[in-house]
């Protein structure tokens, strides 16, 4: 087995989480890397959908932006942005939405808009919502990938950009959100999943060598753990080779 980093295992784990997906709405960055890795490993038929209008893109290298030319050139079809959001995303046709976050709370709600920098200082500006609120609302389910730190995993969001499980179980239904919402948060330390009864994120898996204490220390709320915390399988040689090939291309 080769050496690998926890960042690599995060991406590999995210790709593995797509094993049952047919269609995936892909944001740029970690989600795009993971989705393209899935196409090169366990899910060669995975349909990649980019909000720029490309349905079924088959990029040969990782796109820098969601508007890179290759996404359109290798797509089964290109549609307008309004059509993408209305007919394809809101129409409930996408199995999995893949999101990042700047801040995440214990119910997997997301902030990508502004951060509070303390009294007397102006809010720190983040890029904003983009497609995320409606991806979170309308995909069959949502995967979130982000690095584990108390800066990202916060007790209280400074701003709610996209709803995960709201204030807890049943809240999505109350809000009329039709997808199941976040089913896993995949980090460089392990995997968190919503508890069935409360929809609060609990630690269900740790990457090899990571301890529960490390994960707790990197989480801004008192992190609960599952009754039995699993250990993520390390990347296979094939997964690592595919990931590194993607990054080098």
């Amino acid at each position: 087995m080769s050496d690998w980093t926890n960042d690599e295992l995060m991406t590999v784990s995210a790709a593995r989480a797509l094993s049952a997906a047919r269609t995936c709405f892909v944001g740029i960055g970690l989600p795009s890397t993971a989705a393209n890795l899935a196409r090169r490993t366990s899910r060669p038929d995975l349909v990649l959908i980019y909000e720029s209008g490309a349905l079924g893109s088959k990029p040969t290298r990782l796109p820098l932006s969601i508007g890179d030319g290759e996404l359109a050139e290798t797509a089964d079809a290109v549609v307008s942005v309004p059509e993408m959001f209305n007919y394809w995303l809101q129409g409930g046709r996408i199995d999995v939405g893949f999101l990042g976050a700047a801040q995440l709370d214990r119910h997997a709600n997301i902030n990508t808009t502004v951060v509070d920098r303390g009294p007397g200082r102006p809010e720190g500006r983040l890029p904003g919502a983009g497609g995320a609120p409606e991806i979170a609302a309308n995909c069959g389910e949502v995967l979130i990938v982000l690095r584990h730190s108390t800066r990202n995993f916060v007790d209280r969001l400074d701003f709610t950009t996209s709803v995960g499980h709201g204030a807890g179980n049943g809240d999505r239904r109350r809000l009329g959100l039709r997808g199941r919402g976040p089913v896993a948060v995949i980090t460089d330390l392990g995997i968190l999943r919503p508890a069935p009864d409360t929809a609060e994120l609990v630690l269900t898996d740790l990457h090899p060598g990571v301890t529960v204490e490390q994960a707790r220390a990197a989480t801004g709320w008192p992190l609960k753990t599952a009754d039995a915390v699993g250990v993520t399988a390390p990347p296979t040689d094939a997964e690592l080779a595919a990931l590194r090939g993607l990054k080098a291309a």
Partner: protein
Amino acid sequence: MSEIRLLRDAVAQLIHDGDIVAFEGFTHLIPFAAAHEVIRQGITDLTLVRMTPDVIYDQLIGAGLVKKLVFSWGGNPGVGSLHRFRDAVENGWPRPLEIDEHSHAGMANRYVAGASGLPFAVLRGYRGTDLVERTNTVSTIACPFTGEELAAVAALNPDVTVIHAQQADRDGNVQLWGLTGVQKEAALAAKRVLVTVEEIVDRLTLRPGGVVLPSWVVTAVAEVPGGAHPSYATGYSIRDNDFYQAWDRISRDRQTFTGWVDDHILRTEEASAR
């Protein structure tokens, strides 16, 4: 019917101080050359509309021409922050920037409503988010058949929409292809439409995925080869990802930015004559 003009003249005639202007193009076909001409002419107090402000609006904002920004995702795609945008919002430099902030789905539907002659559009969105508290262009509406509550967004009808396309014919009919984004809606929602094109051809040949804007919905066309750089035009150029990455450094510092604008936009009179 659209008229074929020099970029300098078209910008001067179509875009005025205080206008609401949308320069659209979802990563692809972003009309940079037209924005640079706006900077050269110093057209100011603009309300700029765009789903992804991108480097094009970072430049206009940093140049001090923008009063208000209507948008849904304000980053440098694949790179990071838009520093001039952040500096304006956080520190009011070079002037305070009012914002009206939406999601992509909301912005896309605001253009759809504008293009459709409707005052608003309906979508499943915004529910449970804090976005609704910071804008007066999102509301709720109940379905008259089911009672279900949905989001309503106000129509966008810019004074001017500016887009870049691959081709126009001599009558001013326009065709763009590749990722065509929200350009048709943005153009049809606007009072005036300016299109810069890679080239003017004798006759348009319809392309797979091609979007045609007939001459009678376009106000002016200007031939500006490379007018989308550092964005790109499928079939003519590729995205200058290196420039987008370099922009992070150029734009991070106020003085470096200002110097760059001086050197690359203001002191390029010959470009302005196109």
